[in-house]
């Protein structure tokens, strides 16, 4: 049973991962991520890449919604901005992959800053509606601007890194997963800084935060900017992964998907973003596998497919009722169980 964590230096007190157990588990996780492409088939690699992209975007949304308390339904639009920027840079400028991704993030960030301006005046559902407007405007631009290929969209050549075309799930895994890991670590670190703590103060009570000297507009805009940057980079990865970007690639429902991911995973928790993105991406796929084994005679796939959608919906509702703090809270309880074992909370 763990009794306490004695911190003897300031450095130890400031470290992101502070126990030996955490270090061991993180090393195991890193080793698993590195080994995974060598043991998984194309299907699982595809899903791993998709999960990683969704984790990156969900983490961005969690910075804004979970940590700063600003609801947004514009995440898909910002991903679209990033994806189109990467596609255009790749096709017209031929700049290196990492520069393109950075460009995608920056353009999305600018979009986020613009959309974030109303956040000083409106909150909650009102802000959510304001961010929906971003989706409509972005869709209009994507569909009508010659530069973005109109409704046909743009076909993106494979990402090229160190002279290698990343044209299979195996190859592009080595771009997507490391970038996502860096972004997640960046977000985790953010909340140990003055900026991150200002976000949390704004979420908890913005008037009190202002009294404490936190400039609301600056930090709210910064939160929008950072969140959109994450979405932009995730969108860029998306563009390299699917290699086709059209105005219909980033519908409003995608923003709802990410909002659902952070609610199911756990608002205001980096782990929640990861678990939520995994849940929302993987559960429909795993339900497919499960229904495939059900003893339904005849044409099982045709009969059971609609049921799967219902089960997925019920699972989400179930989480909201039985664990409103999300999957991250379940994980915390699991950890606590082992920390306190053999005693029970």
């Amino acid at each position: 049973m763990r009794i306490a964590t004695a911190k003897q230096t300031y450095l130890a007190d400031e470290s992101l991962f502070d126990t030996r157990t955490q270090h061991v588990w993180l090393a195991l996780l890193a080793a698993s991520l590195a080994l995974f492409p060598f043991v998984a088939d194309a299907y699982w690699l595809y899903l791993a890449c998709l999960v990683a992209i969704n984790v990156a975007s969900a983490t961005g949304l969690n910075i804004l919604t979970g940590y700063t308390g600003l609801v947004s339904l514009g995440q898909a639009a910002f991903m679209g901005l990033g994806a189109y920027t990467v596609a255009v840079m790749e096709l017209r400028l031929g700049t290196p992959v990492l520069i393109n991704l950075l460009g995608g993030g920056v353009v999305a960030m600018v979009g986020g800053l613009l959309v974030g301006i109303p956040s000083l005046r409106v909150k909650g559902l009102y802000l959510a509606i304001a961010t929906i407007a971003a989706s409509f405007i972005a869709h209009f631009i994507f569909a009508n601007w010659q530069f973005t290929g109109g409704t046909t969209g743009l076909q993106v050549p494979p990402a090229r890194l160190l002279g290698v075309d990343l044209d299979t799930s195996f190859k592009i895994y080595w771009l997507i997963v490391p970038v996502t890991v860096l972004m997640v670590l960046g977000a985790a670190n953010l909340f140990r800084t003055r900026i991150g703590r200002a976000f949390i103060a704004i979420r908890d009570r913005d008037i009190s935060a202002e009294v404490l000297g936190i400039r609301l507009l600056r930090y709210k805009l910064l939160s929008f900017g950072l969140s959109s940057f994450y979405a932009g980079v995730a969108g860029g990865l998306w563009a390299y992964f699917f290699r086709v970007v059209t105005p219909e690639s980033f519908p409003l429902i995608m923003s709802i998907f990410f909002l659902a991911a952070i609610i199911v995973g756990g608002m205001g928790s980096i782990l929640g973003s990861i678990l939520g993105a995994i849940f929302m991406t993987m559960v429909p796929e795993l339900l497919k596998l499960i229904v495939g084994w059900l003893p339904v005679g005849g044409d099982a796939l045709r009969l059971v497919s609609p049921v799967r959608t219902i089960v997925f919906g019920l699972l989400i509702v179930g989480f909201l009722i039985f664990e409103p703090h999300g999957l991250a809270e379940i994980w915390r309880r699991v950890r606590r169980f082992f920390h306190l074992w053999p005693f029970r909370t």
Partner: protein
Amino acid sequence: MKRIRLGSGLSRLLAPLGLAAALSAAPIAQAADDLVLGGSIPLSGVFAFAGQGIHAGITDYVKIINDQGGIKGRKLRYVPEDTAYKVDASVAAFKKITSQNKVNFYYGDSTGFSKTINAELNRTGDILMTGASFATELNDPAKYPAQFMLGPDYTEMFGILLRYIAKEKPGAKVAFVYSDTEFGRDPIAGSRALAEKLGLKVATEIMTAPGSVDVSTEVIKLRRADPDFTIFHGYVLAPIPEFVGQGKRMGLKTRYMGTFWTMDNSTVMQMGEDAEGFMGVMPYRYYYDTEGDSPMLKKIREMRPQYQSTGYMQGFLAAMLFSEVAKRTLDAGKDLTAANMKAALDGIKDFDTGGLIGVPISIKGNSIPVGRIYRADVKLKQMVPASDWIVLK
């Protein structure tokens, strides 16, 4: 509030998922010489109405082929996955099916999927694909060498409609009403030029949101243009009934027309009395059509006594053409590579579909540019032929 404990909730949640992951990795038994037809099929979601028919059509033709002993002794095996009409789910299905089977043919569910997976098809070079999309962009053998479509592309569908109009009423005024989607905008630019070439006048173009409900201002615009024919595209049903109903009440004399996805008999008949006279282009014959010699339609009616949708016909034709391609490629003693199979497909000239399409068909480019104009007869509750088969050169 009830708490979920490690020993109960979590393990109950994770156990089936873990089991699923473990078992999915297990290899699937497959006869080495099976011909595999994979499919990203929208069995749930917004496009399920079509996906269910497509699935049934493919299943039935695969059964017919296998009951006859397969193709040169090799069984045809259909491996579908539900996609709910989402591109990422379609790609996941493709990856899953191709990593567990040696796939020869594939059916894709959307334009988005066809475009997304094209790079993978070109890279691997061993799968021939068709699907639900009739996007004009896909009708490009240089860019999409491993794909084809099961009828005319959307611009060709407009071409068939415009040729019919030009013949019926030379110099007629036409209106294009389309959705603000890639699907909706697809044939508009090309068809504008063709209309002019055929001596028709495009009186107005109206773009609406897909599935929009209130179209009263657009109907007024249509009345102002007073076209002889109004062609809808990029919708399944809504907002067509609104346009037709309001137009009739305003005394518009225009004749309304649709393209493939609007033209299922049950879809048109949902308009009720307003459906009377609604016309459109259809590359296949309807389930109930008994005109002439049509052994394959007869067979379908024997297998399924109830009405089957136009989606069913499309799925059935997909499996039929895949089978013909496999037969021709194997007969020529060639490997089943995408290039060889596409060459075999391109070699199909004047192919008899057993009545599924009213004239012998040939592949041109990546499409089958043939169709017929049908008209709704509300008393019969059926779409009936309004023209002969029109084959684009």
